[in-house]
C-alpha cells in the first residue's frame, strides 16, 4: 500500500540526512537569544526567597535611579491593567507578578528593564521587598489536613484541593478485589523532576508603536495557542499579534506554558515602545518553570492464582505546586493517566486522582510525559513486577499471559480508551531475543550463588499520543486539530507550513518526506516552515508526541488533495479520462501505456501555464486534521544492571529498546529520539529530583544538584523495532518521541529491584541513588 520511493525522492522509510543541520553545525541557528533588534533592552525578574509569605512592600526607588534602568514593573502596576493574574492552561490562574502574597520560592515579584543585561542584574538587586513569612506547606499528604495553611486565598473554595477525578467502575472493581485469591500492590512515588532543555525559556517582545503590531519571538512549542492567549489576556487584537518561534533548543514540554517573564516583557514593550528581551537563567528555569511528575501513586492488582489479572485499582495524589499550571486537555485534569491499564487486559479497573496545592513551583505536565503517560506506564510496569514476585512467576511470562492479544485490536480498555492497534508479544519477544534473556537468567542464578548482584528489568509499555479528537480534546477551549498548508510552485518545488513547532524533532526533514511520499517531489525540493503565526496555519503545537499523528496526517491529506487536482490536470494534458490514470510517486500515467505520463513537475508547471478550463490556477491545498482517535505506540525495553556491593553504584550493562510506532518516516530520526529519551529516563531513574525542605527551600535548583547525565554515565543503547501500523492514520504512523521516557524508568527500576528481589526487596523509589541501594544492602546484610 505504501509505495517505496527512490532514495533521491526520499519518501517514507528513508533515513535521509536532516535538512536543518546545515545551519546548526555552523553555529548559524537562530534561537531567541540570538534575536537582536534596534533599540532592544533587557528585562530581569526579581524573585521571592520565601516559599510562603505576605508581600508587605515593594520599593523600586533605588532600582529606578540606577543609570541605564528604564522601568521597574511590580504586581501593583500590573494590577492596574488587570494583568497581575493570568489564566493557566488548566483553567486555574497564576500570578504574573505577586500581589498580596508569594506562594513558592523563586516566585516572580518584580521586573526590571535596563539598557543591557548587566545593568538589569544590578538593578534587580536594588529592588527592596519586605516579606512577612507564613507557615509553609510542602507535604502534599498534609495539604488537606484541617490545620493546613491555606495557600490560595484568591479561590472561592477555601482549601488546598484542586480537583478530584475518577474513571472506571469503583464498585465492580472492589468486588473483584474482595474475592481475589492473589493481590499485589505498590506505593510508587514519581519524584518531581524537570525537563531542563539546554536552552532556557525566553522572548523578545517587540511592540511597534508606528504599526500597532506586537511581535513576540519566543521559545514556544505552541505559537498559535500562545498568540490567542495573549490576545484574550492582553486585550490586543489577535491580528495585531505575531508570535514567532524561531529555532528552539529543546522543549520537552518546558516551553508549552505561558510564563510571567513573557507577559512582563510584553507589558514592558507596550509601555516603552521598545523591543524587550527576557531570557531566564538556568536556575530560574529549574526553580520556576513547568516541572514534571510529583505523583504519589498506589496501584493494586487482583489476580487469579495462575496469574491472570482481573482488576486494577489506582489512587494518586498529585502535587501541582502553588498554581495548577499544567498544560493538558480540559477534560483531563490528570492528563491521560488512565492509560494505566497499560498493555494488559483488565476486565475491571478504577482510577482516581486528587490534585492539591503546595508551596512549590507550579506545573505538572512536562518532560516528555505524553500528558502523564510516563507516570501511568511507570506505575503499571512496577506493579506488574510486584505481582510477578508475589506469584514467583517470571515477569516476562506474567506479561505474556496478560497482554491484550493482537487479534483483539481495536481494543476498548475498562478505563475508556480504544487502543488502535498493538502486538505486544511480538515486541517483547524481539526484545528478549536481542538481550539474550534466557542466558541472562541463567547467569543471574549463578551469580546469586556467589552473592553477586545483577538484575534484569522489563518494561512492556503502551502509550497514548496524538491528542486529539475534537469531541474529547481541547486546551482552553481550542480543539486539538492540527494543520498543513502546501503550495507547489511552477517549477515543481514546494513549500509547506504546519501548525506544529519542532524543537529538535527534525520536522524540516520528516514533513518534507511525507510530501515526497505522497507527491513524489523530492524531499530536498520541499521547504518546511513552522512557528510564525502570520504565515503558518493554526495549530496546537508540538508536545505529547502529537505532530506525526496530527500535522503529519494533515500533510498527507493536503498532499492527497493536491494529487486529486494534479490528476485532473494530468488527464487534461494527456487528453484522457481521469479514470484511465494510474499513480506512482512522481507521476500519473495511462493504464497500459506507461510512457504516456506526466510528472508532478510537468503538472505543476501546467497549473500556472496551461490551466484546464473550469479549474482554478495553482496547485495548493490546506488541511485541518481532526484525528478520529489517538494512536497507541508501544514497546518492550529490557535493562540489565550490575550492582557494586561496596558502594551501591548501579551500572547499566545493557539496554535493549524495541519500539513500535507503526510506519516510520525517517528511521534515523526515530532512533535518535529513542536514544535521547532513554538518556532522560536514565537521569530520572537514577539521579534527578527537585525537592523542597520543610521551609520550602528548593533543593536541586541548579545544575550543581539537578543532575543531567553526561556521555560517561550514558550507556550504549541498543534499539530494534516492530511495525504495527495505526489503522486510522493516513499513513499508518503513530507518535514516538516520548516512548523512551515513558517506557524506560520502569525498566531501570525493575532491573534494580530484580537484582535485590531474592533478598526480599519489592520496590525502591526513584531516584535510585547509590546511597539508597547501599542502605538496602546494609539492611539486608549483604553489603561488601
Amino acid at each position: 500500500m505504501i509505495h517505496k520511493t527512490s532514495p533521491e525522492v526520499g519518501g517514507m522509510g528513508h533515513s535521509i540526512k536532516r535538512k536543518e543541520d546545515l545551519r546548526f553545525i555552523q553555529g548559524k541557528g537562530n534561537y531567541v537569544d540570538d534575536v537582536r533588534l534596534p533599540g532592544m533592552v533587557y528585562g530581569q525578574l526579581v524573585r521571592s526567597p520565601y516559599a510562603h509569605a505576605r508581600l508587605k512592600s515593594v520599593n523600586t526607588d533605588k532600582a529606578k535611579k540606577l543609570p541605564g534602568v528604564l522601568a521597574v514593573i511590580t504586581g501593583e502596576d500590573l494590577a492596574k491593567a488587570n494583568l497581575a493574574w493570568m489564566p493557566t492552561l488548566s483553567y486555574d490562574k497564576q500570578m504574573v507578578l505577586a500581589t498580596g502574597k508569594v506562594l513558592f520560592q523563586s516566585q516572580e515579584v518584580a521586573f526590571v528593564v535596563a539598557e543591557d543585561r548587566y545593568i538589569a542584574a544590578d538593578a534587580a538587586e536594588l529592588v527592596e521587598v519586605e516579606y512577612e513569612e507564613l507557615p509553609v506547606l510542602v507535604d502534599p499528604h498534609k495539604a488537606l489536613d484541617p490545620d493546613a495553611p491555606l495557600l490560595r486565598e484568591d479561590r472561592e473554595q477555601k482549601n488546598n484541593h484542586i480537583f478530584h477525578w475518577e474513571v472506571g467502575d469503583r464498585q465492580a472493581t472492589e468486588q473483584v478485589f474482595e474475592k481475589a485469591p492473589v493481590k499485589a500492590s505498590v506505593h510508587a512515588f514519581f519524584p518531581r523532576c524537570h525537563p531542563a532543555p539546554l536552552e532556557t525559556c525566553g522572548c523578545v517582545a517587540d511592540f511597534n508603536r508606528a504599526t500597532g503590531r506586537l511581535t513576540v519571538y519566543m521559545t514556544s512549542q505552541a505559537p498559535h495557542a500562545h498568540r490567542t492567549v495573549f490576545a484574550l489576556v492582553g486585550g490586543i487584537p489577535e491580528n495585531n499579534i505575531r508570535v514567532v518561534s524561531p529555532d528552539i533548543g529543546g522543549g520537552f514540554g518546558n516551553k508549552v506554558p505561558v510564563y510571567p517573564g513573557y507577559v512582563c516583557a510584553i507589558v514592558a514593550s507596550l509601555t516603552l515602545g521598545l523591543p524587550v528581551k527576557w531570557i531566564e537563567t538556568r536556575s530560574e528555569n529549574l526553580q520556576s518553570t513547568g516541572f514534571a511528575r510529583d505523583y504519589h501513586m498506589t496501584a493494586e492488582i487482583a489476580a487469579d492464582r495462575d496469574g491472570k489479572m482481573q482488576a486494577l485499582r489506582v489512587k494518586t495524589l498529585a502535587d501541582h505546586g502553588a498554581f495548577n499550571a499544567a498544560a493538558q486537555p480540559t477534560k483531563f485534569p490528570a492528563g491521560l493517566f488512565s492509560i494505566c491499564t497499560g498493555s494488559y487486559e483488565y476486565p475491571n479497573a478504577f482510577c482516581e486522582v486528587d490534585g492539591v496545592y503546595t508551596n512549590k513551583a507550579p506545573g505538572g505536565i512536562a518532560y516528555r510525559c505524553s500528558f502523564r503517560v510516563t507516570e501511568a506506564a511507570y506505575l503499571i510496569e512496577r506493579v506488574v513486577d510486584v505481582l510477578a514476585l508475589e506469584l514467583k512467576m517470571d515477569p516476562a511470562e506474567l506479561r505474556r499471559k496478560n497482554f491484550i492479544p493482537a487479534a483483539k485490536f481495536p481494543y476498548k480498555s475498562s478505563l475508556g480508551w480504544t487502543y488502535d492497534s498493538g502486538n505486544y508479544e511480538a515486541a517483547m519477544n524481539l526484545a528478549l531475543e536481542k538481550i539474550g534473556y534466557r542466558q541472562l537468567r541463567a547467569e543471574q542464578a549463578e551469580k546469586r550463588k556467589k552473592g553477586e548482584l545483577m538484575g534484569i528489568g522489563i518494561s512492556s509499555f503502551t502509550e497514548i499520543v496524538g491528542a486529539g479528537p475534537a469531541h474529547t480534546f481541547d486546551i482552553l477551549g481550542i480543539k486539538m486539530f492540527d494543520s498543513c498548508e502546501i503550495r507547489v510552485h511552477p517549477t515543481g518545488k514546494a513549500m509547506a507550513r504546519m501548525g506544529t513547532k519542532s524543537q529538535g524533532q527534525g520536522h524540516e526533514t520528516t514533513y518534507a518526506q511525507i510530501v515526497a511520499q505522497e507527491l513524489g517531489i523530492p524531499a530536498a525540493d520541499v521547504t518546511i516552515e513552522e512557528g510564525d503565526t502570520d504565515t503558518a496555519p493554526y495549530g496546537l503545537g508540538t508536545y505529547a508526541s502529537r505532530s506525526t499523528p496530527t500535522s503529519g496526517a494533515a500533510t498527507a491529506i493536503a498532499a492527497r488533495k493536491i494529487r486529486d487536482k494534479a490528476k485532473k490536470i494530468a488527464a487534461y494534458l494527456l487528453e484522457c479520462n481521469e479514470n484511465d490514470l494510474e499513480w506512482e510517486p512522481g507521476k500519473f500515467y495511462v493504464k497500459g501505456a506507461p510512457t504516456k505520463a506526466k510528472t508532478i513537475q510537468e503538472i505543476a508547471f501546467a497549473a500556472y501555464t496551461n490551466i484546464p478550463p473550469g479549474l482554478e490556477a495553482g496547485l495548493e491545498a490546506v488541511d485541518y486534521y481532526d484525528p478520529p482517535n489517538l494512536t497507541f505506540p508501544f514497546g518492550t525495553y529490557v535493562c540489565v544492571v550490575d550492582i557494586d556491593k561496596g558502594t551501591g553504584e548501579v551500572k547499566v550493562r545493557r539496554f535493549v529498546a524495541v519500539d513500535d510506532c507503526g510506519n516510520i518516516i525517517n528511521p534515523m530520526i526515530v532512533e535518535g529520539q529513542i536514544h535521547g529519551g532513554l538518556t532522560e529516563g536514565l537521569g530520572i531513574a537514577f539521579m534527578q529530583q527537585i525537592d523542597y525542605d520543610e521551609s520550602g527551600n528548593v533543593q536541586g535548583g541548579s545544575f550543581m544538584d539537578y543532575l543531567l547525565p553526561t556521555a560517561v554515565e550514558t550507556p550504549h543503547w541498543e534499539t530494534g523495532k516492530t511495525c504495527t501500523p495505526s489503522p486510522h492514520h493516513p499513513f499508518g504512523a503513530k507518535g514516538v518521541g516520548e516512548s523512551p521516557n515513558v517506557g524506560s524508568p520502569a525498566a531501570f527500576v525493575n532491573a534494580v529491584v530484580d537484582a535485590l528481589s531474592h533478598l526480599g526487596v519489592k520496590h525502591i523509589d526513584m531516584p535510585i541513588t547509590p546511597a539508597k541501594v547501599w542502605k538496602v544492602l546494609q539492611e539486608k546484610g549483604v553489603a561488601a
Partner: protein
Amino acid sequence: MAKTAEQMVRVTVNGRERQASLEPRLLLVHFIREVLQLTGTHVGCDTSHCGACTVLLNGKTVKSCTMFAVQADGGEVLTVEGLSANGQLHPLQEGFKEEHGLQCGFCTPGMLMSSYALLRNNPRPSEEEIRWGISGNLCRCTGYQNIVSAVLYAAAKMAKDKTVPVEMAEVGGTR
C-alpha cells in the same frame, strides 16, 4: 554601583583581530555573542556545568561563561564559526550531519569545539575516550550515541585525508 574602568581588549577571533573597550566583568561568552555578534556559542546554564559555551582559547577548550573577556586579551579564540574554511565544512561538522549527531542544535557548537580539541590531542580516540572528551558538554536530545559516531566519522576522515588542516592557525573562519 559605580561603573569600573573599562579595559581595552585585543583578541584574534577566528583568525581576525578584534578590539573593544570593555567592562572587566563582561564574560567572554557575552563578548563573543553580543560585542562580536557571533551567536553560535550558546549559554545553557549559570553554574558552569553545561559546556554549551565552549570555545578554544589559545588552543585549549574553555567555558567562555567562566572567564572574563579581559582574560583573553592578546590571545586567540576559535569559535564554531571558525571551524569551516573557505566555505568547506570541517570533517567534524560533516560527521555530525552524516551521523545525526544533533537534534535541536543547541549543544552542537560546544560539542564541536570539544571534539575538535579532542581530535587534535588524540586523532584516534576510542569510544570511551570520546565520551570522556565530551564529558564537559551536556546534551538533552541525542543521548550522546550519535555524537560519538560523528566524532569517529571525523577521526576516520581526517586520518584518511591528511590534507585537512588541523592546526588552528590554518583554519580560516568565516568572520
